[in-house]
């Protein structure tokens, strides 16, 4: 009986509104009309309200706008008899609840002490682990995973499981399905986040288990996240509610999982989520709404009506995924521990350590090479040269060399680094294993828990064999792995690996845009930013930092119909700007007419658009005759008067914005870095964190022009974050940008 749900949700909406109103009156009293209210570091104000109405709420007084809308939306409860249609009313009540919840939750950020933490991951100890709203840094980083499909969606769990054990099982199963899990509210005084905490489960964005808040009103953070994804990556304008909601229905595969009793207010929030196309699946016996339409399939499903009592929690994840219409592709990897991207962020602390390898503590390396002859590789052969870790004491160290050998008819040496770089991710995705670095500076750990579940060094071989076949089956026909733990063997093979690293570097260094006829496109992000197209050249990697020209080329050969397509340069239109006829033609088609021209080397004339995944944004600073570059991780004010999040909001979503460009960190030291606009000599400001990142490569590049430590001539936040301060500094150090021609 949907009417029961409608009645409950509408009642709940009125309650949520009244709560918000009380909080608002209190805040008005305590802080006054003009008190600024904001969620941490976001350019999207209160994102659900901003997305739906386009209205910016910046102060306590501004919240009146919200209540006007809420009161307009709130419907009466359905009558006993001769009721009027209630589906529309219920959905409106749901949205009104989300608006009200944004008031309630954002006002919490005025409290002292702050009820939420502002970092990405929960501290290892203590009860103060609720993370609250994701700021734009977290949101953009994680949003990227929604874009490339590594996270197919999210589960918003409200309440708590009947036992801690079930809580862990459900969380683990969702993690294994690669979903983000948002943990919200409580049931019977207990929250599932607390249950996981009690069981020692690591939580945080890195683990894809994110505890928002113990009040169910914090569920609005999940929907604020969804609304921002549509605005940031989908290029949807704030206020274009229909597109924001449909975008989420069709792209963000999320659902609500209600564990424990469902209260009126929770029904109201579920109704809010249904507006986004996110259905609700409950483990209690509640009325169902099975007819389809607002969501892709069912709207409300009650597990006790679907299955036997003792199978409810065993089946709830599978059923939820089906109800949402989500196809989860899970890597089948033969290891005794959980495996998937959700475990990539797991941290292994010293105390939890069983054994570690490399990390400058023991000799180590990882090296993937192709073999010319089929008989040189025996597929699936995993060989350990030296002892495995069975007999070690906790906290031990061991050398480790990983040699992966690949044979394939379509394998090329160019693909070696592409495949090799995946070792990091593949090993990290095993629960109980941790990996950092690459080549001969790699560092790996196996935890005590992982060890107890049976994880051994040998499994690294199994993982690499399985995952490389899954992802690179088109080029890798046969894969074998040798794992060296014998120190002498490691050292011997490390020499060979180093020789190979060196040769690769030489080869890549020599590649220029002129040396190839074909570039590659990347339209991976079109799932979220349908008008955006990346063009990747040897000297300009993808703006997300994830894809070099070689990667794109390899990906194309591996999946010929995939998101990386060869683009023939064709006739050169303008060598300096980096415009080619073939590229422009491709662009017009792939962007569905959104873009006509593109300059590879200019941020002023037809600059490349952005999906929203950029590592950095470069912005002209007209007074200085130069540019500033701000990386995604930097959340403070910049000399252009905007923070990264605001800038990102302006140039994401496939818009060509002269004077602004999104790019990778690597591109900064490229010879082709805005070479049409004056090149790296234009760089006048970067935060210190970015300077540290690029110092070595950029100084090396600048040395060719005779600069000694060019990076030190670039202003940073210590110099100031206004153009005036930057300018004064430039004059002091005699920065070359001051002498260049005007940019525009």
């Amino acid at each position, binding site marked *: *009986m*949907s*009417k029961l749900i*409608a009645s409950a949700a509408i009642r709940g909406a009125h309650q949520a509104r009244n709560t918000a109103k009380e909080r608002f009156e209190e805040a008005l009293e305590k802080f006054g009309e003009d008190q600024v209210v904001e969620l941490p570091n976001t350019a999207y104000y209160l994102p659900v309200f901003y997305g*739906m109405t386009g209205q910016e709420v910046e102060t306590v007084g501004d919240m009146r706008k919200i209540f006007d809308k809420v009161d*307009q*939306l709130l*419907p*009466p409860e*359905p009558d006993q*008899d*001769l*009721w*009027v*249609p*209630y*589906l*529309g*009313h*219920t*959905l*409106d009540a*749901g*949205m009104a609840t989300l608006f009200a919840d944004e008031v309630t939750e954002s006002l919490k950020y005025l409290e002292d002490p702050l009820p939420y933490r502002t970092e990405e991951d929960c501290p290892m100890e203590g009860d103060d682990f609720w993370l609250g709203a994701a700021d734009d840094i977290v949101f953009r980083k994680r949003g990227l995973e929604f874009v490339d*499909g590594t996270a*197919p969606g999210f589960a918003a769990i409200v309440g708590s499981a009947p036992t801690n054990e079930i809580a862990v099982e459900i969380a683990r199963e969702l993690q294994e399905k690669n979903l983000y899990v948002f943990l919200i509210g409580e049931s019977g005084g207990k929250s599932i986040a607390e249950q996981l905490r009690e069981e020692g489960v690591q939580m945080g964005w890195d683990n894809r288990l994110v505890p928002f808040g113990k009040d169910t009103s914090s569920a609005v953070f999940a929907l604020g996240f969804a609304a921002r994804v549509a605005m940031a990556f*989908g290029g949807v304008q704030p206020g274009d*509610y*229909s*597109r924001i*909601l*449909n*975008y989420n229905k*069709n*792209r963000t*595969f999320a659902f609500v999982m209600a564990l424990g009793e469902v209260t009126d207010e929770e029904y109201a929030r579920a109704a809010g989520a249904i*507006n986004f196309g996110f259905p609700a699946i409950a483990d209690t016996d509640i009325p169902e*709404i*099975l*007819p*389809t*339409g*607002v969501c*892709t*399939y069912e*709207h409300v499903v009650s597990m006790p009506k679907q299955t036997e009592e003792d199978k409810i929690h065993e089946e709830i994840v599978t059923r939820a*995924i*089906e109800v949402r*219409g*989500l*196809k989860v*592709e899970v890597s089948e990897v033969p290891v005794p521990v959980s495996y998937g991207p959700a475990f990539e962020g797991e941290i292994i602390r010293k105390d939890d350590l069983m054994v570690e390898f490399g990390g400058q503590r023991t000799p180590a390396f990882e090296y993937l090479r192709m073999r010319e002859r089929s008989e040189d590789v025996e597929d699936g052969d995993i060989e350990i040269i030296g002892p495995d870790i069975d007999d070690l004491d906790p906290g031990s160290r061991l050398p480790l060399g990983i040699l992966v050998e690949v044979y394939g008819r379509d394998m090329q040496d160019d693909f070696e680094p592409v495949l090799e770089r995946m070792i990091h991710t593949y090993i990290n995705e095993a629960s109980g294993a941790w990996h950092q670095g690459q080549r001969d500076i790699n560092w790996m750990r196996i935890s005590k828990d992982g060890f107890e579940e049976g994880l051994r060094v040998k499994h690294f071989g199994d993982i690499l064999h399985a995952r490389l076949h899954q992802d690179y089956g088109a080029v890798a026909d046969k894969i074998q792995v040798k794992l060296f733990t014998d120190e002498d063997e490691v050292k011997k093979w490390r020499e060979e690996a180093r020789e190979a690293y060196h040769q690769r570097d030489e080869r890549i260094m020599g590649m220029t845009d002129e040396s190839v006829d074909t570039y590659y496109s990347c339209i991976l992000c*079109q*799932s979220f930013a*349908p008008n955006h197209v990346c063009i990747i050249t040897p000297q300009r990697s993808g703006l997300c930092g994830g894809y070099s020209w070689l990667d794109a080329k390899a990906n194309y050969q591996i999946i010929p119909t995939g998101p990386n397509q060869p683009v023939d340069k064709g006739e050169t239109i303008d060598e300096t700007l980096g415009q080619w006829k073939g590229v422009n033609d491709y662009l017009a088609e792939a962007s569905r007419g959104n873009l006509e021209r593109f300059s590879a080397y200019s941020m002023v004339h037809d600059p490349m658009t952005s999906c929203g995944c950029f590592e950095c944004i470069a912005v002209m600073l007209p007074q200085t005759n130069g540019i500033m570059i701000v990386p995604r991780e930097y959340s403070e004010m910049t000399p252009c008067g905007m923070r990264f999040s605001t800038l990102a909001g302006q140039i994401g979503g496939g818009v060509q914005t002269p004077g602004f460009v999104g790019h990778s960190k690597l591109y900064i030291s490229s010879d082709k870095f805005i070479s049409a606009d004056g090149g790296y000599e234009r760089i006048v400001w970067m935060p210190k964190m970015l300077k540290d990142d690029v110092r070595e490569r950029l100084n090396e590049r600048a040395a060719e022009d005779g600069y000694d430590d060019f990076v030190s001539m670039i202003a940073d936040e210590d110099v100031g974050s206004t153009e005036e301060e930057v300018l004064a500094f430039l004059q002091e150090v005699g920065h070359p940008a001051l002498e260049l021609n005007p940019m525009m």
Partner: protein
Amino acid sequence: MPKSNDRKTTDKSRDLAAQHMIDVAAKKDLSLVWDRQSAQAPPCPFGSAGMCCSICAMGPCGIMKEGKRDRGVCGATADTVVSRNFARMIAAGAAAHSDHGREVAEMFIRTARGEVPGYEIKDEDKLHRVAELYGIETADRDKNEIAEDVGRAALAEFGQNSGELAFIKRAPEKRVELWREMGIVPRGIDREVVETLHRTHMGVDQDYRNLMLQGARTSLADGWGGSMIATELQDIMFETPGHPWPTADRIPPRARLNLGVLEEDQVNIIVHGHEPLLSEMVVVASKDPELLELAEEAGASGINVSGICCTANEILVRHGVPVAGNFLQQELAIATGAVEMMLVDVQCVMQSLPRVAADFHTEVVTTTEKAHMQGATPAAFDEDAPLESARDLVRRAIENYHQRRAVDIPDISSDAVTGFSHEYINYMLGGSFRGSYAPLNSNIIDGRIRGVAGVVGCNNPAVKHDATHVALVEELIANDVLVVQTGCAAIASAKADLMRPEAAMEKAGDGLREVCETVGIPPVLHAGSCVDNSRILVALSEMVNVGQREGRLSLGDDISDLPVAGAAPEWMSEKAIAIGQYFVTSGVFTVFGVNFPTTGSEEFTDFLFEEYKDILGGSWAFEESPEDMAARMIDHIDEKRKALGIDRARERILFDMEMRRKIDTE
């Protein structure tokens, strides 16, 4: 005066309130429509087969299928005569709806100019959408400025001689292309009506295929022209039913229907006919404190306005004003003795009303210069001061209250939820933020809803009042077909309790019931008056459009692909034929009951019933019994489901990243 004929009361109407009043009237020797119907029996065989031609003075000619009377004096064949008569019915029906639309457009312009106190532009949202269809700029403009332009653009379409009507482009692209290929996109409204009259004049178009191209074009000038203009502009002025725009309450009106809505101790005013222009103001005037006080002084506890026919439907779906009955109840309402005044405007008003009223104190008032009636009081509706006109009339009704004698009001009425405009349907299926037809298409594809049927039209004393309507509708909903209704057909179902939401639990098939419960709707939706059939055209187009936008929800790319059907089971007026023809021309399979006016020519009838399937994708059909009608409609719906590949349960599609990339997010 003929005595009550030999038909039993229970054979005249299925409606208990009507039955009661028929018996009351019989006791008083009042002649009613049923009596006159039997006095006319048996009907003229030439006329009922469409074979009587009286358009020139060489005749009249009664054409016979065989023998030497197989042609008229002028040489016209049966096919020609039948098709001419049929085309003329379309023209007359189109003229009626469109002339209504014209009046509305004129009033709309005057309203926009602020010349008509009491009228205003209420639904700005809809104003903007309609303005867009006319290519009228809306940004940063005052609503009245926009409205005046819209009104002028609409009014201009009546006299327009070339080009296309603006609303035509609301039809699916493929349908419009077909019309263009056939050359039947209306150029203007009046032009098509006039040309039909010309081409059906003696000795002009004598090839029924060619003539029916014009018949089809004229019908489109009605459905997508005059009727649609009437609906859209009335909505903007008088509120879109269901009040779906953001600042409104979004609560559709609930009301009572049937003779029991007449109040024994109140001044009863009935508005009857088809236009809401005056009745809107009568409703306002009836709430005037001054007049209420006057009523009280006259000994009445209030002023009760109710309606009959489509004037009733207009104010019912917008404001929840009660309905006293449908077409065949107009005389019966007066026979209750409780009606102080019956205001009639245009169409479907029986000339017998003043005669029935003569036995009571009821004053019958004609309210338009277009339609006077002997024995009725002509009261010109002052277009400059409609509220004043309405007040005067209400005052007169109050003054008439003391003349009232014995009163016999059957204590029978039914509740209904009404007001299912296209805009409200959008709202009710997704709220303010996700409003769309997607859930409708989705549930049709899933099979919970088998299809959608429009059951519309009149009452006809030749068949039992309301009986075919109700039996057909009940059969359809039991088979999971969602029913949308207008006109007297809608009133029939409401009186049979089918428009209460509870009816879904009592009478709908399991699938339809589940959807009704989810949305909170009755299984039978009241969409308004007979000009509001244009809402159904828009709704059908939207069902196609939803699928065009999201492939997973596709129900084909033309109206003729949809699992839908139409019916007018108890039709009687020329307007019904015009409506039927515009539905068929738009691609809908449409069944008529009672009698089909072309049976004199097998060839022409075959053209409408069979050949049309290939030409238009929609066709006419005739069935007498509601069971056969339902069977034909359900068969058609099932055929369409099969063609769409939704006749079997579909596999649940799970979306991987690749598939999600391909879904449009608009």
